[in-house]
Every structure is written in structure tokens, then in C-alpha cells.
């Protein structure tokens, strides 16, 4: 574990130094990243130019959902987003290089090509989140604020687990890497909207099968005092952290199974 973190830190520092060699390019790509991720929120505000409430949620309330999932996803994308290029390394045989180094492979793969420009998404998400927190009709008590902070962190851990599980999947089907986009980017888009908009079966799927609902839907709806479309016990709203731990454990097992089945191209 500690060796993994040390490796991760080492590789990340190396990529950061390499990024900072081209400062202008770094600033421009971070701004570009910020603008690209802001498009989703622009779409939502354009929708609200015609309406006062979407599925019964006001703009600040939707922005609270948007901000929480964006920061969580942004953190996960920064920390583990590089894993989605693993399929390419498996295909061209360069994954062998990682196996030969005397350091934990998952840490190396996650830190590979660490892209500091992904901070753009986090900054943009934080800006929307800050605006939403100040505008939304909620009394921000200490427990409510603590729940929100914990939610963002456990949400990031859940998305990290998805990235790791997706990488494990790529050991078997490297060409199908795009499927994981539907859970990562697709999940992020889904969680920006109130759950009441979606078909019940879809909500069940992201609650019980791929537990994305715990990233923000359940805790944020609790803070807003709104009912969740499924009939869940009230303590389910606070399950974000345990669900995140369980997801990470399962993703770790999937990663081990994946790496054991790895066969080099031999080139």
C-alpha cells in the first residue's frame, strides 16, 4: 500500500515536471479543459432560460447535483483517468515495461501520463458547487456541510473504482475501452440531473448494480430534503463512504484477476 503510494507520487512528480516544461501549453490546455467541461453546465442554464424547474428542481438545486458529481469525477479523472488508455498498452505490448519495474503495477498505470490539465474540470465543478451552496435553500449546519464534503470524497473513490474496474476489463477486451465511457462520462452526465427524470429501471440499475447513486444522488437529495424515487431505508443516504470502500475492494479484486490473465503480445 505505502509502496504503491510512493510509486504513484514519484511517477506523478515526474509527469508534473515534464508538463511544467511547457507552461503556456499547460495553462492553455487547462483552460480548454475547463471550457469543455463547462459546456454541460451551459446546456443546463440554456434549458433553464425556458423553465423555472426541471423535474421539480430549481437551477441552484440542479447545480448542487452538477457540482458534487463534477468535483468527484474530476478528482477521479485526475487521479486514475489515465487507466483508460491501458487497452492501448496491452495491444502494443508496452504494458510489459510496467511489469518489469520493481514497483506496484496499478500505481504505475494510474500515474502514467498524469495530466495536471484535468484540474480544469475540478476548478469548474468547484465554481458551480460554490455557487449552488450559496444559492440553494438549505441551512448549512455542520452535519450537512460535513455530509457534503464526505460525499464529494467518497464519490471520487467510487469513480476511481470504476476506472480501475474498467482497466481490468481492458485486459480481456482492450478494443472495447469505450464501454467504460458510458459509466464514467455517462455516469457523470446522468448524476447532473435529478433522479426523478429517469426511468425507474435505470435508477435501480445505478443504485444496486453500479452504485453511482451513492456518488451524489442519495446524500444530496437528503440535504435538499427531497425524496428518492426508490423506496430505500433512511440510513441509505449515509452509505456513500462504505459503498466507496466496497467498490474499491471489488475493483482491486477485478484488477488482480485481470492482471493474472494478461498475456503479452511478445513484441
Amino acid at each position, binding site marked *: 500500500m505505502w509502496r504503491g503510494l510512493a510509486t504513484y507520487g514519484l511517477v506523478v512528480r515526474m509527469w508534473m515536471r515534464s508538463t511544467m516544461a511547457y507552461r503556456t*501549453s499547460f495553462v492553455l490546455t487547462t483552460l*480548454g479543459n475547463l*471550457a*469543455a467541461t463547462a459546456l454541460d453546465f451551459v*446546456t443546463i442554464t440554456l434549458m433553464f*432560460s425556458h423553465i423555472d424547474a426541471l423535474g421539480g428542481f430549481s437551477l441552484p438545486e440542479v447545480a448542487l447535483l452538477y457540482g458534487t458529481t463534477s468535483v468527484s469525477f474530476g478528482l477521479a479523472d485526475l487521479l486514475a483517468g489515465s487507466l483508460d488508455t491501458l487497452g492501448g498498452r496491452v495491444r502494443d505490448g508496452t504494458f510489459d515495461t510496467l511489469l518489469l519495474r520493481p514497483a506496484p503495477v496499478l500505481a504505475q498505470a494510474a500515474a502514467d501520463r498524469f495530466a495536471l490539465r484535468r484540474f480544469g474540470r475540478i476548478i469548474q465543478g468547484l465554481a458551480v458547487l460554490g455557487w449552488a451552496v450559496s444559492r440553494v435553500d438549505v441551512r448549512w449546519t455542520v452535519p450537512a456541510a460535513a455530509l457534503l464534503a464526505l460525499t464529494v470524497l467518497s464519490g471520487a473513490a467510487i469513480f476511481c473504482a470504476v476506472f480501475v474496474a474498467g482497466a481490468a476489463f481492458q485486459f480481456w477486451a482492450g*478494443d472495447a475501452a469505450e464501454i467504460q465511457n458510458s459509466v464514467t462520462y455517462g455516469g457523470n452526465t446522468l448524476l447532473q440531473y435529478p433522479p426523478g427524470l429517469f426511468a425507474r429501471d435505470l435508477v435501480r440499475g445505478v443504485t444496486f448494480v453500479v452504485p453511482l447513486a451513492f456518488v451524489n444522488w442519495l446524500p444530496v437529495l437528503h440535504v435538499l430534503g427531497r425524496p428518492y424515487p426508490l423506496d430505500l431505508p433512511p440510513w441509505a443516504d449515509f452509505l456513500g463512504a462504505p459503498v466507496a470502500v466496497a467498490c474499491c475492494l471489488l475493483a482491486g479484486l477485478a484488477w488482480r484477476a485481470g492482471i493474472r490473465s494478461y498475456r503479452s503480445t511478445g513484441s
Partner: protein
Amino acid sequence: MGGFYGAVAIRGFRRYATYRIATAAGIFTNTVFGLIISYSYIALWDQRPHLGGYSEAQALTYVWIGQALLAPTALMGGGFENELMERIRSGAIAVDLYRPADLQGWWLASDFGRAAFQLAGRGVLPIAAGSLVFDLALPADPVAWLLFAVAIGLGLTVSFAIRFLVGLSAFWLLDGAGVAQIVWIVALFFSGMLLPLNAFPGTLSAVAQALPWAAILQVPADVLLGRRHGAGALAALAVQAGWAAALLAAGRLLQAVATRRVVVQGG
């Protein structure tokens, strides 16, 4: 010579047809995004029926047309422009310029081959999936489909012509990634991929519909949905053709200027 460019197009088609698992993964992801966006549109049109002159069924059809055209029009990348920029940067472009083939014509043919495959491979199935879940407003009139096909062809040409200009920028910038990213964001927004341009508020809607990106998605969708029919449809196609011709001519001009200043490093 038509036979030559036809051969290039067929090779472009085959090149992308090789990756069957990746295509299946892409269809899956397009379908998931189509579902998510559809539900958000249902909530919007529920509040504002006939927003932008669309019924709810038409708005949903618009979503799935967008998902079907996303890969063929390379609105989120994946087209030839990165390859062209890389050839300019590495100097391989000198070999291309020696070939007895026109640079723009070569890339147009190969990009059309790619788009033809992605229309067949990634366009048809998401629409079919969408029509299973939702009531779509797909016309029975063969004339509408014929006009739709022509509009798609013209839209692809406009998309190509813009990306060719982006690619040529590498002659001056060497690293065209920043330009590509800016154009990519602008195209995503002004093509109507995020929200139909007629559902934009007031002046922004008028401005967006007058820009060339409207030719990529908005016009083909309006022609199929019957929002433009008869003389109106022909006029819309004429505007598309005008943009296509103007942008291709601009590309030709820029190509002439660029090739006069090309300096290839020896080695």
C-alpha cells in the same frame, strides 16, 4: 481520377471496419448517452411543449439523430485531423505532397470512407435502440429520407472542410492541439449537439443557425423531422452547399499558401 479517390474512400471505410469490438462498444456508449439526454429532454419538453417548434417525439428523434451523427461527423474528435497534423509535424507531409494526388481530395475521400462506415456501423443501431424505448417521429415519406441523406452528405463535407483548416494550422503552429480543442468546443456547441439550436434563447438561436456548424446536425435533423420541407428544405440544402463550397475553397487557398512555405527538416 474518380476511380482513384473512390479507392481511397473504400480503404478508409475498410480501415475503420476492422475494429468490430470497438464499433460495438461505441454503439453501446452512444445508446447510453442517448438514453440519458432523452430523459432530460422529456423533462424539458414536459414543461415547455413545442419548445423550438418541436413536439416531444421530434425532440427525442433529434437526440438519436445526434447520437447517430456524432461519430460520422467527428464532432468529438476521431477524424483525420490529428493524423494530418502529425504528418505535418514530422515532415511526412513532404511525401504526401510529392504524390500525384491532391492533398485535400485525398483526405476528403478517406474521411468520407470513415464517415460512411461509421454511419452504417454506429448510426443505424442507436436510432433503432432509441425507437424501441421511445416514440420517435421518424417519417414514412421516402422523399424526407432522400433529402436527409443529401443533407448528411453536405454536413459531412462542411465538417471535413472545417477540420481540414484545423489540420493545416499545424503548418504554422506545429502543435495544433490547442486550435483543435477550441474548434472542437465551438463545433460541439454550435452544431446543436448539446441542445437543438432552435431551442436556444432569442438572438443566440438566430446567430447559431446562421453559422456553418448548423449544417452539421441541425439542418439534417430539421429536414428529416419535416420542420423544413419542400422549397424550405431545398433552400436549407443550398445554404449547406454554399458553406461546403466556401470552406473547401478556403482550405484550398490555405493549402496553397502552406505548401509554398513548407520546410522539411532533413535527417
